[in-house]
C-alpha cells in the first residue's frame, strides 16, 4: 500500500496530499504522522490539500483528529490550500474544523508556523 510522504523542514513537518484520499490511506497517515512528531519533536504540521478535490465527512474528521493528536504532542496543525468547493462541502457537512489553523497557501502557512515557533522560543530553550 502506498503512503503519503512526510517531509521534515526545520521544526515543521510538511505533508502534501496529491492523491485521492481513501479511508485506509488517511488512517495510515494519522499513524505515521503521530510517530513522526514524537520522533522529531516537531512544533508545527503543515498539511497541503490543494490537490484534494473530494472530501467526505471521514476525511474531514480525520483532519480534525490529526490536529487534536498533534496538539497533544505540542505541535500546531495548519491546513493550507483548501479549494472553495471543498470548503463549502465541509461547512455543509457541519465540519468547520475549529481546532485547525488554516492558510491560503503553503507560504502563508509556513509564516504562521514560524510565528508560533518564535513565540515558543523561551520555553523550548531554542531561540530563532
Amino acid at each position: 500500500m502506498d503512503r503519503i510522504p512526510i517531509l521534515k523542514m526545520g521544526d515543521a513537518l510538511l505533508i502534501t496530499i496529491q492523491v485521492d484520499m481513501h479511508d485506509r490511506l488517511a488512517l495510515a497517515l494519522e499513524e505515521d504522522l503521530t510517530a513522526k512528531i514524537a520522533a522529531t519533536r516537531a512544533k508545527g504540521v503543515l498539511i497541503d490539500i490543494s490537490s484534494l478535490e473530494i472530501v467526505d465527512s471521514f476525511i474531514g474528521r480525520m483532519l480534525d483528529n490529526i490536529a487534536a493528536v498533534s496538539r497533544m504532542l505540542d505541535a500546531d496543525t495548519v491546513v493550507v490550500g483548501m479549494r472553495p468547493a471543498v470548503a463549502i462541502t465541509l461547512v455543509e457537512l457541519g465540519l468547520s474544523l475549529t481546532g485547525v489553523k488554516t492558510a491560503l497557501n503553503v507560504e502563508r502557512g509556513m509564516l504562521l508556523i514560524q510565528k508560533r515557533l518564535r513565540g515558543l522560543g523561551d520555553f523550548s530553550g531554542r531561540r530563532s
Partner: protein
Amino acid sequence: MAATADWNGVIARRRDEIIQGWLNFLRAEGALQTGRIKDAELQSECGRVLALVAPDLAHAGDRSPASDELSQTLSALSRSRALQGFTPSETANFVLGLKPALFGAVAAEYAGQGDLIAAATLDATRKLDRLALITIEAYQRSREEVIIRQQREISELSTPVVKLWDGILALPLIGTLDSERTQVVMENLLQSIVDTSAEIAIIDITGVPTVDTLVAQHLLKTVAAARLMGADCVVSGIRPQIAQTMVHLGVELNVVSKASLADALALALQRIGKRVTDVPQALAAPDYSR
C-alpha cells in the same frame, strides 16, 4: 327536439347593435376612465372577439374549430391588459360584458319563444364564463411571468465582491439572505479569496433588512468557509435595531464585528500591518482645482 338559436344568424344580423351594447356596458363599468385604452381601440377589439365568438357559440359541443384561435386572441388581450396595469376584474369584465348585449339581441330576435331564449341564454352563459376564465388565467400567468423576471433580475444584482486593498475584500450584502443566495455569495467570496489571495474579508450587512436565526446561520456558514480557506472575516454594518433583535432572539455571531465598514477597514489594515496617517501640509498634493 327543440329548435336551437341560430347564433351565427343573430350575430350577423345584429352585429352593430351587440357591439354597441357591449361598449356601453364597458363604458359604464369605467373601462375607459383610466385612459389606459382608447375608445377606438376597445371598439376594434370588441369586433375582433365577436367575430370569433360567433362560430364558437353556434357550435353544439364544448370545443369548436374556432376555440383555439379564440382563446389565443383572448390570452393575448388579457396579457396586454395585465401589462397595462388593469385589475383582474376589469379584464374579466371585458368578456362578461358581452352577455347583456348578446342576451338582449337573442330576446329581441326570438320574441315570444321563451324556451328557446332560456336555452340559448344558458348555453351562451356557460361558454362565455369559460372564456372569462381563460382571460383570468392568462392574466394571472403574465403577472407571474413579471414576478419571475423581477426575481431573476434581483438575484443578478446581488453581491459583488470588492477588493478594498491588497489582501482585503469587502462583501456588501443587500437584501434578504436565503439559502440559494448564500450559496452564490459563498462561492463568489471563496473564489475571490483564491484569486486575490486575500487575508481578510469584510462582510457588510448594512443592506440586510432583517437578521433572524436562519440568516445568522447562513452568515456563520460563510464565515466558516472563508476561515477554512485561511481568510479571517469581520462583520460590519449591523444596525442598532438589528443588533437588539438578534440579542433578543438569542442569536450570537461568534465573529469579530464592527459597527461600520470604516471601522472594519481600519481593523483589517491593522491586521495586515498597514497604517493610514495624515500627510504633513507641506507634502500634501497640490490643489489642481484652482
